[in-house]
């Protein structure tokens, strides 16, 4: 059997490669047959001419026979494809406008598709750059009320000891280190990690070694592992760096290893140091330290096994908590494991999927549009096609030719689309939008390009299908008589335009929702004027500033100097800067003095911040009641914000009331306006990426301590400086930094940003989504408008005669024009209904991108159809005008 196939393949191959010879042989064979027949006819008594004529007649048309023989050799397939392509190219030259419109619209749509797909590919699909990265998991615990995702060090120890499905578990936390630097000190992004950390990732150090288990724990030695980029750019690729001593946090610290290029976890980390977790203390789960946990799954562990293990661990870890935590705090407690990659992608995932859907819709519109244009051409070509059918061309063959033409028409657009995508990707990488900041540079790779090619061909076939099928159903008689199937294509074309309009409306509604969401967010009342504010962070080294008093004195000294700078009316320090995107203090649970004490789990919670007395004045936060802090306030006076007052003392005057957590009762002396917390969307961010679920504008109650009489606090050493300026805040950066160096020349500042830059960054995802969907909706509307224009023009041309008769009967031009516009409005109305229904189903997929707007926002759903109808009316003005100017004499003489 196999030999037979080989033989057949050989023969086919011969037919293909030695075309000329095969053709010659075929000719000779047929000539031989005709000659033989002629001779026989002569023998039967015919004259030579008669004999030959009879032989030929009997044989039939020689060429047709050779055609059939060629067909049998499957040669025609290839032959005719080449022919069709040539024919298509000739057609393109005859009708360059169509070719240009096709190339242009496809270039944009396929370019957009390729761009989105390359983003999806880079962000979602490409695995993390670690061996067997699919087995890396991120582990958290659902804890508290309302439940938040957070991991504590106790979980890490329990997991390391008990887990049966993870081969290794590691805990880490982000931090910063003060590096004495070369010329001036720098605050460097660092991580504290357990010794298992690098082994979880499975990446070997480029030089030296990584941490060993003996280096874990509170007595961890002063050693550090460096990142490739730090070693390269800051230490000049020093080949003898292992064993070298760096001054970190003013202490000598020995370099023990350098990680290879590309090891970047947690992101931007330049140094990894041992984690000083006290195992015995953390296992008691009283003074819990918040950590982050990553783990590597053992090979061949199924999803079900992982789930079962998580359930088991949930039960066993819940039992480890002391009794005080029972109740609401542990009510929703669960141990969760999520693939690390999905965790790192975060909230971009649903957004990217929604964008992919949207961009496919744009391509759909482009296809429908081109199908429409080709249908128009098919009508003008139906006589040609009918003639070919009458001459014996197979219908299948004609369908194939029409499809070939549309694919050929699509190819330049596809190629140009790659160009557009390259431009877009380069642009994205150049003006890196903040949302893509965390990801590697977007690149167009082979799979993406292959996808583009496939998309192009598919597109060609898709928009060629309608004209091809029309051609297949063509009635020869009708077409030759010139009646054509114009009515039928008119109906198809109207249907296609309706589809186009409906899909555009869906995109328009999507863009409308995002725009509303963006505006809601951008117009969020921050609670303070964001202009002319400069912020920067200063993390003090614990060994140099061991006490709260020393720490606060440092900030006071700096602020005193900064306030003397020209153009600086006010300056303050605070543990939390609004919109810094950092996790604030976790909520503090407290009792209200005078109310019966509640069990721990039911106590009210509030976020606290420590500020200098000038904070409210500097920020521009208004006082609502009572008084501001003054220099004599003790550690037991606090100020609260309005949401605190409303939540804790509804309908009462909070001034003079007391709350009590640990230690002395705290007395409220003033109420200030509420401000946004570390993100725009809420008072305090839920430490997980589901901002879509946080109730709009629900601000966490907040209270302020004054740093006048400082309590020892880990947060006092990590304050931010806030400087109000009269001019451009960026101009003050150098001067402020100099004042910090003047107080302590070893103390760097970092995270220097104006408040407006922070506001900008908070809006980045929304701006990005809005920009992209907005561009898509715009493209869609333009394409749809072109479609409406095309169809209405066609209808006007087709009905010239009818219009002529109407005008001859006395119809006013305005009436005729109105007729055309009314027809297109009817189309738009149909489309609006379909589009609204489609949007009603689809907008739920953009839910995660929306803030403060319902997915079925009535305003957007009400306004968008009118925008669509307006565009449609505008697009049909041209044809309407032409209809109004139809000269009845001309029209009736036509044909």
């Amino acid at each position: 059997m196999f030999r037979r196939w080989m033989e057949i393949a050989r023969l086919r191959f011969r037919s293909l490669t030695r075309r000329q010879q095969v053709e010659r042989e075929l000719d000779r064979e047929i000539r031989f047959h005709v000659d033989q027949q002629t001779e026989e006819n002569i023998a039967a008594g015919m004259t030579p001419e008669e004999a030959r004529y009879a032989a030929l007649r009997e044989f039939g048309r020689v060429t047709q026979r050779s055609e059939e023989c060629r067909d049998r050799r499957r040669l025609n397939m290839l032959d005719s494809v080449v022919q069709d392509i040539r024919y298509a190219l000739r057609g393109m030259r005859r009708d360059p406008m169509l070719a240009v419109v096709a190339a242009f619209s496809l270039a944009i749509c396929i370019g957009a598709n390729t761009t989105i797909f390359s983003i999806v590919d880079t962000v979602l699909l490409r695995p993390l750059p670690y061996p067997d990265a699919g087995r890396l998991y991120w582990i958290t615990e659902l804890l508290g009320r309302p439940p938040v995702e957070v991991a504590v060090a106790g979980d890490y120890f329990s997991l390391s000891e008990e887990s049966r499905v993870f081969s290794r578990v590691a805990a880490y936390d982000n931090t910063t280190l003060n590096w004495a630097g070369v010329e001036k000190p720098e605050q460097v992004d660092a991580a504290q990690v357990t010794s298992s950390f690098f082994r979880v990732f499975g990446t070997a150090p480029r030089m030296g070694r990584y941490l060993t288990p003996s280096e874990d724990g509170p007595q961890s030695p002063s050693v550090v592992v460096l990142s490739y980029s730090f070693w390269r750019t800051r230490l000049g690729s020093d080949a003898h760096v292992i064993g070298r001593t760096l001054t970190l946090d003013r202490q000598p610290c020995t370099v023990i290893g350098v990680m290879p290029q590309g090891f970047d976890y947690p992101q931007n980390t330049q140094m990894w140091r041992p984690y000083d977790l006290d195992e015995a203390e953390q296992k008691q789960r009283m003074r819990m330290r918040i950590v982050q946990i990553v783990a590597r799954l053992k090979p061949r562990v199924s999803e079900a096994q992982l789930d079962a293990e998580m359930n088991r661990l949930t039960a066993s870890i819940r039992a480890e908590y002391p009794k005080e935590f029972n109740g609401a705090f542990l009510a929703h407690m669960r141990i969760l494991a999520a693939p690390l990659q999905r965790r790192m992608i975060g909230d971009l995932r649903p957004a990217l999927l929604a964008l992919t859907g949207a961009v496919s819709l744009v391509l759909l519109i482009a296809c429908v549009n081109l199908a429409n244009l080709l249908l128009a051409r098919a009508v003008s070509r139906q006589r040609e096609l009918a003639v070919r059918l009458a001459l014996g061309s197979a219908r299948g063959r004609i369908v194939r030719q029409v499809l070939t033409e549309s694919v050929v028409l699509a190819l330049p657009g596809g190629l140009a689309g790659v160009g557009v995508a390259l431009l877009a990707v380069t642009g994205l990488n150049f003006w890196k939008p903040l949302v893509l900041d965390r990801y590697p540079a977007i690149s167009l790779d082979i799979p993406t390009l292959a996808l583009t090619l496939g998309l192009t061909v598919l597109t060609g076939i898709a928009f060629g299908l309608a004209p091809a099928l029309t051609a297949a159903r063509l009635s020869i008689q009708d077409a030759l008589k010139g009646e054509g199937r114009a009515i039928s294509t008119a109906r198809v074309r109207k249907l296609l335009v309706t589809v186009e309009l409906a899909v555009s409306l869906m995109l328009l509604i999507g863009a409308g929702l995002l725009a509303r969401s963006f505006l809601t967010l951008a117009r969020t009342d921050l609670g303070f004027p964001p202009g002319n504010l400069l912020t920067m962070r200063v993390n003090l080294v614990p060994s140099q500033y061991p006490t709260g008093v020393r720490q606060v004195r440092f900030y006071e000294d700096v602020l005193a100097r900064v306030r003397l700078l020209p153009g600086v009316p006010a300056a303050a320090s605070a543990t939390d800067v609004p919109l810094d995107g950092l996790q604030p203090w976790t909520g503090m649970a407290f009792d209200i003095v005078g109310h019966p004490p509640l069990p721990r789990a039911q106590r009210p919670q509030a976020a606290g911040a420590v500020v200098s007395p000038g904070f409210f004045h500097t920020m521009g936060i208004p006082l609502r009641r009572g008084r501001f802090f003054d220099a004599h306030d003790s550690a037991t006076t606090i100020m609260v914000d309005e949401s605190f007052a409303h939540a804790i003392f509804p309908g009462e005057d909070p001034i003079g009331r007391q709350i009590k957590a640990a230690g002395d009762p705290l007395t409220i002396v003033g109420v200030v306006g509420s401000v946004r917390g570390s993100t725009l969307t809420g008072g305090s961010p839920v430490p997980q990426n589901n901002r879509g679920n946080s109730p709009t504008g629900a601000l966490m109650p907040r209270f302020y301590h004054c740093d006048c009489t400082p309590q020892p606090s880990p947060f006092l050493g990590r304050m931010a400086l806030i400087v109000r300026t009269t001019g451009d805040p960026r101009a003050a950066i150098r001067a402020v930094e100099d004042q910090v160096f003047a107080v302590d020349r070893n103390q760097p500042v970092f995270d220097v940003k104006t408040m407006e830059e922070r506001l900008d960054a908070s809006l980045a995802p929304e701006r990005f989504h809005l920009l992209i969907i907005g561009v898509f909706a715009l493209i869609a509307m333009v394409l749809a408008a072109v479609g409406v224009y095309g169809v209405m023009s066609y209808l006007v041309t087709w009905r010239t005669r009818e219009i002529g008769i109407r005008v001859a009967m006395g119809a006013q031009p305005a009436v005729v024009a109105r007729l055309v516009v009314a027809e297109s409005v009817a189309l738009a109305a149909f489309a609006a209904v379909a589009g609204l229904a489609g949007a009603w189903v689809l907008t739920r997929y953009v839910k995660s991108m929306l803030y403060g707007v319902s997915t079925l926002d009535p305003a957007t759903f009400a306004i968008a159809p009118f925008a669509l109808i307006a565009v449609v009316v505008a697009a049909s003005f041209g044809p309407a005008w032409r209809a109004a100017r139809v000269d009845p004499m001309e029209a009736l003489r036509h044909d």
Partner: protein
Amino acid sequence: MSRPSDLIQGTLDLLILKTISLEPKHGWAIAKRIQLVSEDVLQVTQGSLYPALHRLEQQGWIASEWKETETGREAKFYSLTRPGRRQLESELAQWERLSQAIGLVIRTV
């Protein structure tokens, strides 16, 4: 442009294979032979003969060769290949079964 039905096409294939099973023949001779043996009942139109020959050749059941005829002209001679012979046998067997079956049906009805 109706294509010959499977029965007709299959029958023509069978006739061709059978005709060249004794000795290689060129196309004209195959047509003549079929006409002759069937006493002019079966007229092979040349329009279906040559496509059939080319198809059979592509399937590897027959092979072709340019040879001189007795009149001294070059002609393309077709001969049965080994798979072709097997194909002929199976088609013959099938044909016999079919004609028997048809005979039975005709006789009983």
